[in-house]
């Protein structure tokens, strides 16, 4: 199986796995490497220490001047940011992930939608309605990889007195932190960490209302026992992204150049330049994607986001680019990264191109 679905989830880094093992201890462990990090006794304090080391590692992915709140994932982080901010009037980009769109619509059914151009980019000069209290624009789109001008948009949000929330799930650990944002959400399993943990970064001085109540962990913002293992795995994955950032980027750039040659004859959806180059969203007129998915079983790729797969709905992202419903259904997403080899891309391209050719497209 060739895995080319890095936007859905990423392989767990061996280093992240190794960092978790000491904190997955059983009754035989003399250090009690399983303790509740909120317990005041010695094993509890040791567990708390590992959580704080991880917090510092994760904090390196964010701008300076804020705090990291651990959550169960980016969805929870985004919910906490939007609902917890108390914002009543929202403006969000047309290509946000469902975790932002659904939550924002729940909080403000009359929200303003910031359009994107045919290149999948929000115009940095887009009009933000007066009275808006929170603006959400993602750093890197999950379907087409376009990199949004978040710093400019954050400044524009602030100019109308709004907070700026950035879903940085797809960009964290790959691009520089979104400067200017007030709230940033990320997910460990999109950067080679474990599933079940994510984080919300909150600019200093900003108060949120909690969603999950209870023991008052995470400064009262997010109750629930923290897993030292998941925190350690997240921290190790984040540290690895920091130390490997240059080589990861060079590797992805080389794969991108190779991929462009391999998929000649396909149309790229979204900007080629303002883009994370580990995302190749392609379409071919007349392509039957469901058939392609079922015929190319040795290649793990997708049609749009994993969450929306199977829904049969046309992608809201591709529609926002101005594609017809019919054209949106001819698109596939290929995602690659740190552990992808060029030969895998070549083999996958051969399989996909042959299957498309057999469809006569």
């Amino acid at each position: 199986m060739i895995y080319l679905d890095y936007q859905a989830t990423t392989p767990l880094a061996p280093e992240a796995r190794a960092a978790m093992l000491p904190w997955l201890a059983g009754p035989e462990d003399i250090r009690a490497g399983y303790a509740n990090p909120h317990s005041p006794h010695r094993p509890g304090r040791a567990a708390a220490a590992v959580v704080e080391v991880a917090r510092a590692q994760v904090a390196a992915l964010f701008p300076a001047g804020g705090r990291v709140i651990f959550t169960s994932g980016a969805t929870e982080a985004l919910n906490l940011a939007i609902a917890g901010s108390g914002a009543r009037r929202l403006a969000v980009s047309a290509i946000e992930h469902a975790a932002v769109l659904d939550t924002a619509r729940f909080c403000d059914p009359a929200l303003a939608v910031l359009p994107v151009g045919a290149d999948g980019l929000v115009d940095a000069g887009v009009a933000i309605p007066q009275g808006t209290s929170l603006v959400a624009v993602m750093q890197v789109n999950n379907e087409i990889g376009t990199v949004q001008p978040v710093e400019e948009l954050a400044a524009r949000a602030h100019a109308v007195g709004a907070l700026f929330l950035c879903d940085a799930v797809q960009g964290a650990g790959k691009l520089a932190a979104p400067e200017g944002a007030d709230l940033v959400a990320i997910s460990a399993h999109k950067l080679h960490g474990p599933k079940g943990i994510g984080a919300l970064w909150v600019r200093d001085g900003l108060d949120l209302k909690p969603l999950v109540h209870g023991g008052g962990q995470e400064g009262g913002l997010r109750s629930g026992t923290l897993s030292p293992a998941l925190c350690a795995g997240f921290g190790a994955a984040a540290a690895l992204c920091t130390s490997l950032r240059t080589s990861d980027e060079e590797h992805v750039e080389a794969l991108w150049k190779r991929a462009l040659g391999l998929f000649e004859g396909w149309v790229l959806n979204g900007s080629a330049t303002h883009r994370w180059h580990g995302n190749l969203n392609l379409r071919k007129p007349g392509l039957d994607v469901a058939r392609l998915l079922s015929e190319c079983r040795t290649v793990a790729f997708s049609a749009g986001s994993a969450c929306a797969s199977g829904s049969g709905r046309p992608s809201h992202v591709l529609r926002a680019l101005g594609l017809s419903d019919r054209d949106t259904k001819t698109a596939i997403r290929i995602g690659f990264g740190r552990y992808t080899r060029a030969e895998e891309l070549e083999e996958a391209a051969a399989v996909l191109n042959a299957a498309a050719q057999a469809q006569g497209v």
Partner: protein
Amino acid sequence: MSPSLYFDHAATTPLLPQAREALLDGFARWANPSSPHRAGRAARTALEDARARIKAALGWPGELVLTSGASEALALAVGRAKAPLMAVSAVEHEAVLRLAGDAARLAVDARGQVGPAACVLPGLVAVQQVNNETGVIQPLAEIAAAVRSAGGVVLADAAQGAGKLPLPDADLIAISAHKFGGPIGAGALLVRDWALLHPTGGQERGYRPGTENLPGALAMAAALEAGNAWLEDAQALRARLETALVASGAQVIAADAPRLCAIGAYRMPGKSATAQLIRFDGMGMAVSAGSACSSGSLRTSHVLDAMGVAQPGEVIRVSLGRETTADAVDQFVAAWRAVAGLA
């Protein structure tokens, strides 16, 4: 610290070897269960298999929403239930109390139990199965009958009871894997009928968005399947512990109430809980004063206050687990006597 001198299983439990194996297996199946390709579908199959095994191990015929833990499950239940929250017991965990707003507080008697007569209410009523500080078991069968007689819905926080006792009679039940030998970061809300909740969209049949934690689900299933036969030994150990502590001047909190044998609260007259904790910690023994979440806060326990316990600031919690031995209990008793100035 000797591994057997951990007496804080109510805060969290050691990970069972079976659960660790399942977790490691899950780490290797890292595809997104919502992805349509083969790896994703295999992850989906494994996730649904884990869900079925969890339900079977619990004996739960209804629906099950996987969450990050009991706090989230409780927030989901209260936030999405169609029935408005009308009452919570006065001894609930903070995870429920902080959601309760101006819902009524159901008083408990000196034994820490809620009276069913006060539960004849036509809304959502939250009563825990087992108290996390005292081990007191609530009469949920009678409470549920009272709530349902008025057309209400019962929410039970079963974080401390699940995997140890049979599930309580309730319509919505929250559980947490790390309280029964599973990993931290995995839990579930058991739902009698989807019609009880408003959906949110997204994964888990539209009741809990977010990429599913497959390793956590697999490990939760494995931990539940390990069973609870150890509680028979714990029953005997607890009797041994309490006989010796009482002989050493201890007051057993809610001594005559039905209690889970794994959790007990004990008062050492004349010694503050904080002072006791520091001494026990120095001797390599992990115990706690009340819940782990509130420890360090120096607040008095709302649970002990609600029961009218005198000198609640002198009470500590001792919670036993699968690996606790008679020798460990004896060592704890000796330590207790030293802290109490008897040895």
